[in-house]
């Protein structure tokens, strides 16, 4: 079963493939809305879209969210069944504005969608403690979708489709871009890391993290942390904290060191193939959900572990 019309909207070219594939999987026809850059239109068609609307950028000072009303009008006109918006910051705002225009609520950050018997979606609630399944009741369902829900199809250069440029009149929106500047801080891509070492409040000071960094360097892992380490202590950048409100990692192995294993943290790591934990409290929740655990004091065991791994390395090299 599929629905009739699916629209996908994305401000991020990298999300085009997955969303187009999702559209193909769920709908008879797939229309894509992209912004500013016409070269994306061809790509969208090769990736599965039947028609593409390219919204031009009239001036630097306009935010793309200003197009939401125009897009909502087109969606209403076309009697679209399902609108899937990339769950970026801008995408969430676009989805909310479009949904409100259509008199419905945006179903946010879905992790699964099924159209067999109406449009049914799943998303995480209560900080990851539960997954809620919801059925859309409105004529047009508006959802936001992060990466990893659909799998992009290979580009098919023979696919045909229509491309329409749209340049709607924008009344004074009351929002003017004064400046756009790159974000300070590191660019880390934890989501593609194969090995990740995560540190938590079991470390007493920032300097002590060196022990974990040494381990990470030895095994070729990216460093990650629990939220308090990034937001409370500010020992590591925000980009590195893992969990329901941070990054989601899917490595082959995740080593949680001095992390208690609260659900809000674990939902960010429980897709790891192997979960490992070191914690001095044998009743820490983390030990209920790991493959390999060591009950011990970081300050005792971590230096020993590092030393042993170094020895091994000397032997194998």
């Amino acid at each position, binding site marked *: 079963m599929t629905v009739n019309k699916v629209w996908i909207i994305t401000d991020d070219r990298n999300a085009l493939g997955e969303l187009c594939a999702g559209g193909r999987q769920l709908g008879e026809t797939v229309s894509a809305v992209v912004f500013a850059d016409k070269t994306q239109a061809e790509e969208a068609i090769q990736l599965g879209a039947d028609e593409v609307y390219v919204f031009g950028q009239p001036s630097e000072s306009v935010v793309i969210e200003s197009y939401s009303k125009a897009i909502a009008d087109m969606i209403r006109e076309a009697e679209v069944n399902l609108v899937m918006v990339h769950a970026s910051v801008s995408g969430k705002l676009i*989805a909310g504005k479009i949904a409100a225009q259509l008199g419905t609520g945006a179903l946010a950050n879905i992790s699964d969608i099924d159209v067999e018997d109406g449009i049914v979606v799943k998303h995480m609630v209560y900080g990851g403690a539960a*997954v809620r399944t919801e059925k859309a009741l409105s004529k047009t369902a508006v959802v936001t979708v992060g990466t990893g829900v659909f799998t992009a199809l290979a580009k098919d250069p023979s696919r045909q489709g229509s491309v329409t440029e749209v340049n709607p009149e924008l009344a004074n929106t009351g929002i003017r871009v004064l400046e756009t500047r790159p974000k300070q801080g590191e660019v880390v891509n934890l989501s593609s890391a194969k090995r990740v070492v995560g540190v938590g409040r079991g470390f007493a000071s920032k300097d002590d993290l060196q022990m974990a960094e040494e381990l990470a360097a030895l095994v070729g892992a990216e460093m990650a942390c629990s939220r308090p380490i990034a937001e409370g202590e500010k020992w590591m950048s925000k980009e590195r904290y893992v969990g329901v409100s941070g990054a989601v990692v899917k490595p082959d192995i995740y080593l949680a060191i001095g992390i208690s294993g609260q659900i809000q943290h674990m939902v960010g790591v429980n897709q790891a193939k192997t979960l490992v934990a070191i914690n001095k409290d044998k009743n820490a929740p983390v030990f209920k959900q790991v493959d390999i655990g060591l009950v011990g004091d970081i300050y005792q065991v971590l230096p020993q572990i590092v030393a042993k791994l170094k020895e091994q390395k000397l032997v194998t090299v």
Partner: protein
Amino acid sequence: MRVIACGKAVPEEQDIVISKDRQVSFDKAEWKFGSYDLNAVEAGKQIVEAAGGQLSGLCAGGKILENPKMKKDIVSRGLDELFTVTDEALEQVDSFQTAKVLEAAIKKMGEYDLVLCGAGSSDLYAQEVGNQLGELLGVPVVNAVNKITPEGDKVIVERALENEIQVLEISLPAVLSVTSEINTPRIPGMKDIISANKKPVTRWSLADIDVAELEPSREVVSTLAPEQADRRLNILEGDSEEAVAEFVKLISAELK
């Protein structure tokens, strides 16, 4: 400047109990205000401290909002007055129904310059109430706001996108959803808690704000704890050299 900060009463997530059949229970849960909403209150407080004006709180929800402890909790964080809309029907509403109720309440509250929401409610975290509310009110609306500087009849805000910061000039009135990093909410002192008792509260029902019907956008089919992946649970105890050696052996096997 009149600033309205919105907040939602939520169950304390640490108190959620998961039963064997993956059901989620809040029977033992304390209630509090969502941690992200406290950032909105703090942002509002800082604005009225800097630019002068008044900070009003607005909460829509179930009967729990009538609990004096809840009032004290939110008002003591810097509100000059509190408005609540309570109805049992508001215990299970979706983001759009909430936005509709807030819209109606704000219209009844009169003139305003700025409505602030948190990054998301700490229970359902759809991050859409502010976005939908702004559109319903027909005013400029922006999410992920990391800094707010009042400037006459406008505000200058910094908005954190994935890889860049947008600096925006926004005319008032407007609706802004702030990030959890915008500030560290102050912890109310004894004085704040005592003076909170004297701050005025206006309590409305849905009828008071002329909301007759609230069509849901979705039907909740189920709310279940995620299925736990089977893990090996191979836990080694003690910081003896043997335990550490065994641990290193096990993880080395995984790292091959």
